[in-house]
């Protein structure tokens, strides 16, 4: 009797749970719709358009690989691809070199949560101004008559201004490192904060010195933060065009700059080719970074 009652009473609750679960799926609808309309469809269109026939003033939906052939046989475009990869690697390393010690300090050595928050807020203060202002603000810093040259000259360290500071690849790297460093610091500091202080003390108590502890405990435990930070920085740097345009004096051409130029000249098919190449490059980079750490396990 009891069994029957239990079975009968269980059945409606299962149905209710299923209904609730079905209904909850609707919560995903706006997101899925948005992603379909503004990510999946445009990406498919981009791939499709990259095979259209492009003439000087006209584009027609006649399929051809001409734009692809042009991209892979032109020194200019291949050089832009290489420059993009090179700048991405340099900026990635630079943000890591600048960001990791900062995150180590904030996440591990500052145990007061308020101080930690204040220091992290300092990191994002530059974001209170617009992106373009942040980029352009480097010009009065790095120029021949800029603050850095003036200070170095006043201190007697140099006699003539260092010209390579602005309108060069170096200025692009400096600008990008400053702009994107916070995206590296944040995830690493988060992972640092998750390390139980007693784990470090245990390693100390077992006889390990600081560098051993860093190599065997801190670094492995913060690798998920490094990978997440690297993904953030990579995706943003690979798609960059504004910093290069503003700080390199058009000497540095990234794939992003090529897209801007081609879209400006209404060469949609060729812009689409560069877009597809850039998307594939980002996909490879993100996939490679995700292989470094199993984020599902680590987080």
């Amino acid at each position: 009797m009891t069994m029957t009652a239990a079975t009968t009473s269980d059945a409606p609750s299962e149905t209710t749970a299923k209904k609730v679960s079905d209904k909850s799926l609707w919560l995903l609808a706006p997101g899925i719709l948005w992603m379909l309309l503004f990510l999946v469809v445009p990406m498919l269109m981009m791939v499709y358009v990259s095979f259209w026939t492009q003439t000087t003033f006209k584009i027609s939906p006649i399929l051809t690989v001409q734009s692809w052939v042009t991209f892979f046989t032109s020194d200019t475009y291949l050089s832009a691809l290489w420059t993009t990869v090179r700048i991405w690697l340099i900026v990635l390393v630079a943000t890591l070199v600048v960001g990791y010690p900062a995150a180590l300090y904030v996440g591990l050595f500052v145990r007061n949560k308020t101080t930690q928050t204040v220091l992290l807020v300092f990191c994002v203060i530059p974001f209170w101004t617009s992106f373009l202002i942040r980029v352009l603000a480097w010009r009065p810093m790095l120029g021949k008559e800029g603050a850095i040259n003036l200070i170095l000259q006043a201190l007697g360290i140099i006699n003539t201004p260092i010209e390579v500071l602005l309108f060069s690849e170096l200025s692009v790297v400096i600008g990008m490192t400053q702009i994107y460093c916070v995206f590296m610091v944040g995830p690493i500091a988060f992972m640092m904060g998750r390390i139980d202080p007693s784990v470090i003390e245990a390693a100390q108590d077992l006889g390990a010195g600081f560098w051993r502890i860093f190599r065997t405990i801190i670094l492995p435990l913060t690798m998920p933060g490094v990978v997440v930070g690297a993904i953030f920085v990579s995706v943003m740097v690979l798609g960059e065009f504004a910093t290069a345009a503003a700080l390199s004096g058009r000497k540095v051409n990234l794939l992003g700059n090529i897209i801007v130029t081609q879209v400006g000249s209404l060469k949609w098919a060729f812009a689409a080719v560069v877009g597809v190449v850039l998307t594939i490059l980002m996909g490879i980079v993100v996939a490679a970074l995700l292989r470094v750490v199993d984020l599902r396990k680590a987080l």
Partner: protein
Amino acid sequence: MSAVLKLSNVRKSYGDLHALNGLDLALPEDAYVALLGPSGSGKTTLLRVIAGFETPDAGSLTFKGKRIEGIAPHRRDIGFVFQNFALFPHLSVAKNIAFGLENRDIDPVADPKVLAARVKDMVALVGLGGLEERAVTQISGGQRQRVALARTLITEPSLVLLDEPLGALDANLRARMRSELRAIRERCGVTFLHVTGSESEALAMGDLVLVLDQGRIAQSADADTIYNQPQSPSVARFLNCYNLFEGTLSSDAFIAPLGTFPLGGTSPRQSGKPGYAIRYDRIAVRPLTDTVANDEVRLEATFVADEYSGAAINSFFALDDGRVFEVESHLSQTTPNALTPQTRYALVWKRNDALVYA
């Protein structure tokens, strides 16, 4: 027995809070020492000072005949087992155990064969066979506790500090690990200093039991002495088995606000603060009409409720000043009469069973 560790007049304060207040301590070699203290008594601070994670404000620490203040934790030859185990979450059981040998600054073991053999021995010692390659997140609480212990013992420290090592385990496992910890220590032949807030754990495990009160060692003795002859009312309070009264002492009685308790033949213990303590299991509950013998003390109270714990029943009475008075009746010795709630009873004990402090 010579002392492996001596602390003399050690002080450590955090602002106005004196965690260690002129503490003196001597730990014998090859012994299991239990340190009992209530929450906030300075237990963890004491361990952290000994381990080197905290620097004392004053006093001296002598370990194996050498002063160790100012020596880094990893150079003290003192092992620390953390309350939360503090295992390295990204390493396997074997790698956790091998960590100290492999990564210590002084004389690390680089030969993989030697390392594997030492880990194998330690795994056998703590009973973790077959779990070597498991992640530490995939083993039970008791197994994690053993990993933490093995990881410390493999470095062969001369002293092992255990910060409430059984606190994170469930009751069954805690009881089993008590005897296992003692057995492991005997096999290793080093001193264990086991910090706990549980009086039963301290009494069951310690060859020597230290009671910490307000940053000082209030009593240091074997478990039997601590239990039967607590040196002060505060030590008696930590044991959680004495009803305590404050009051004044006359030549033949202890005068408490609730009544006068005639004294037995034993002389009062000097503790600096007068007090009267009677153990829960030394008290009989009788009807109000019963007479009292010449060697007995009587106190009236209202029965509130009782609690059955298998081997005993604990009865709770409300005294006239509102305080709770507890009586423990062991079921193996007697079957207590059923008591009626909100009814007054006479609580009676032998004069000589009470501990009187002057």
